């Protein structure tokens, strides 16, 4: 009996081992490894079906469609969201439900949508109520939802708030939806400063100097714009308080140009030539010189602070041609950044601090390039269509705005930081130049 038992035991053990080994074998060696390393889609595909309109009466203006358009257009300013064309949708939830229980997510995953946004509009007299919901179609869950109520005229603000929420969910940053755009436009052969929403909507003229006005620059808090103007004949720096409508002037002998604010301080750097040489100085808001930053015979111009304020990029002709340099304000070390081409100017520091956009002046065309602040990974973003100048970053470093003469007249364009989707931002009378976005919290 005992032997029999043991024999049986022995066999069982062996069979067990056998099975175990064969299984482990299957787990370890069955897989074929395949490398997949070229994501074809560079943006997150999102479906935004028609908004449901709960207004009982017949409505004159389709605020649902209006809000949807604002949402689609707004999300395009993230630089990483692409709304799938409505024609591809196989199902319209506006007819039935917009909540999680009512949505069949397979209808959306099958067209490739990774997220779904539904909306409901209710008009209450002059006010409007907008409900917006964001869903993950593959995980089939509700991510976030908001209800906004406000005047019909504020519909853009409400929808852009939701864009901010989506941006924050995906990247941890609020995006540029609260940002304002400052730019120069010609008015009757003069150049004046305008301010618009981040996407070029609602442009308003804020200077009436009837003169040449150039190089506007936002202060970090969005309260001040510094610029150069010829109002009094000489190129002087003007600092305009947007809320109080006050203007002060910094006018040394010679040129007073290219102002740039120190981040989070009411101190600015600018190029002055009163000494007979173009050097960069640090100035108080009242125009008192704090210190001289560059000290080199030859043109030193276009200061641009790093987002942490510890470094300054500028253009210098010290090597014989205009090139971009970075000076460390702590160690006073100066390092040349650009070596390609013999005319590189107008550095613009990305808000993540890693990259500089600049203009490379070529024989036939000026193009915009991006380069790492260590001088590596130089990429050309515009491709020899007209002259492309005045690069400036969005506060989330996803977009670059610039001016281009590719369609003849100089206009303001926008593109992603990798140079994709270059498009015209706004078309006003005359020509527009020198765009710059304010930081997120402008005018809040």
């Amino acid at each position, binding site marked *: 009996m005992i*032997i029999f038992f*043991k*024999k049986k*035991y*022995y*066999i069982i*053990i*062996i069979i067990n*081992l*056998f099975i175990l*080994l*064969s299984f482990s*074998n*299957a787990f370890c*060696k*069955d*897989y*074929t*490894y*395949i*490398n*997949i*390393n*070229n*994501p*074809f*889609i*560079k*943006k*997150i*595909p999102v479906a935004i079906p028609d908004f449901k309109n709960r207004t009982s009466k017949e409505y004159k203006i389709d605020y649902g469609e209006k809000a949807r358009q604002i949402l689609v257009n707004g999300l395009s300013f993230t*630089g*990483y969201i692409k709304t799938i064309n409505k024609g591809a949708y196989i199902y319209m939830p506006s007819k039935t439900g917009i909540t999680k229980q009512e949505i069949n997510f397979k209808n959306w*995953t099958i067209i*490739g949508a*990774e997220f779904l946004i539904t909306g409901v509009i209710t008009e209450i007299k002059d006010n409007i109520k907008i409900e917006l919901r964001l869903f993950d179609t*593959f995980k089939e869950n509700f991510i976030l939802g908001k209800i906004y109520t406000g005047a019909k005229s504020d519909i853009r603000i409400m929808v852009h708030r939701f864009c901010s929420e989506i941006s924050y969910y*995906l*990247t941890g940053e609020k995006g540029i939806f609260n940002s304002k755009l400052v730019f120069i436009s010609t008015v009757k052969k003069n150049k004046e400063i305008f301010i618009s929403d981040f996407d070029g909507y609602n442009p308003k003229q804020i200077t009436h100097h009837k003169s040449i006005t150039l190089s506007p620059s936002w202060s970090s808090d969005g309260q001040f714009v510094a610029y150069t103007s010829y109002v009094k004949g000489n190129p002087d720096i003007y600092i305009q308080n947007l809320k109080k409508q006050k203007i002060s002037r910094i006018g040394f002998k010679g040129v007073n140009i290219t102002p740039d604010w120190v981040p989070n301080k009411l101190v600015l750097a600018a190029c002055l030539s009163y000494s007979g040489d173009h050097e960069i100085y640090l100035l108080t808001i009242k125009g008192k010189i704090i210190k001289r930053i560059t000290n080199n015979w030859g043109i030193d111009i276009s200061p641009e602070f790093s987002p942490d304020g510890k470094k300054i990029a500028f253009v210098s002709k010290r090597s014989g041609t205009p090139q971009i340099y970075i000076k460390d304000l702590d160690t006073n070390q100066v390092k040349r950044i650009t070596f390609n081409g013999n005319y590189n100017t107008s550095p613009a520091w990305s808000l993540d601090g890693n990259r500089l956009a600049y203009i490379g002046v070529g024989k036939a065309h000026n193009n915009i390039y991006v380069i790492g602040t260590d001088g590596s990974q130089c990429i050309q973003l515009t491709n020899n269509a007209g002259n492309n100048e005045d690069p400036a970053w969005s506060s989330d*470093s*996803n977009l670059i705005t610039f001016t281009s003469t590719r369609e003849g007249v100089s206009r303001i364009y926008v593109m992603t*930081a990798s140079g994709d989707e270059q498009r015209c931002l706004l078309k006003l009378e005359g020509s527009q130049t020198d765009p710059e976005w304010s930081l997120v919290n402008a005018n809040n």
Partner: protein
Amino acid sequence: MNSLYSLISRGFLAINNGYKNKHNLFLYVISLFLHIFFFLGLFFIQNFNSAKIFPQAISVNLGSLVSNFKEEINISQPNSVKKSINSPKLSKTNKIKTKANLQKKQKQLKKLKSIKKKSYKSSNVAINAKKKQVKKNKTDALNNVLARLKKQVEKNKSKKSSIAKTSSNASPSANTTYGYGSNKTGKISHKINLYNLKIISQINQNWAFNERVAGTNKNLEAIIGIKILKNGQIRNIQFEKNSGNKYFDNSVFKAVKKSNPLPELPKGYPFYKVALRFTPYGLK
């Protein structure tokens, strides 16, 4: 395990004790048998896996794609040769020869041995004629194919010389054996290579990834194991390795989900297990 040791030690004990216990001896023989069975089993399992048309490591690159196409071209070549062979002159001569053969056949039906010899000769003549014909076409591709054809025919001759055949039948049969026979083992790995390329293309096309949202594109790697059924359906999606970046992991998971179903598996595959290693290096 303890019992195993005890059994083995008991077996040795049995030897030491001079086969005192017949039961122990019996047990020892059984254990030996089982051991052999066990190790043989292990051996076959290894073999089984590699032979199970699951290539262990497949290098998927453009090279293999090109070689694939080459193979296909080669396979189709004999047909074109056939066409050239069927050019008027040749076909005439062939027809004449076959007629002659048939006549001979009918005449000498009873004397089998002589038929064999004569048909053999006639087939030689036909091959020579073919040689001449193809030599006239000086394109390299055809020459290559001719060389192969010759070899094949020679093989055929040596293998099947004992079988009596008319010359007109000999050459097409040689062609067909070439087309299917020699390539069989290579074709299977090419099939699955081609299939791998299809998977890569399909998943890449469904993969939406933005490095700005990920915050980085460096050192991101996620491995997802999937099982593909015969009809291309994806089953058992599971992460073998996470990248640690939530957005990246989500994006690759969605890419796999979106790619369902994949193309049907090549014939002869009941299922196919793949580990997809995702890295966004393709982005510049």
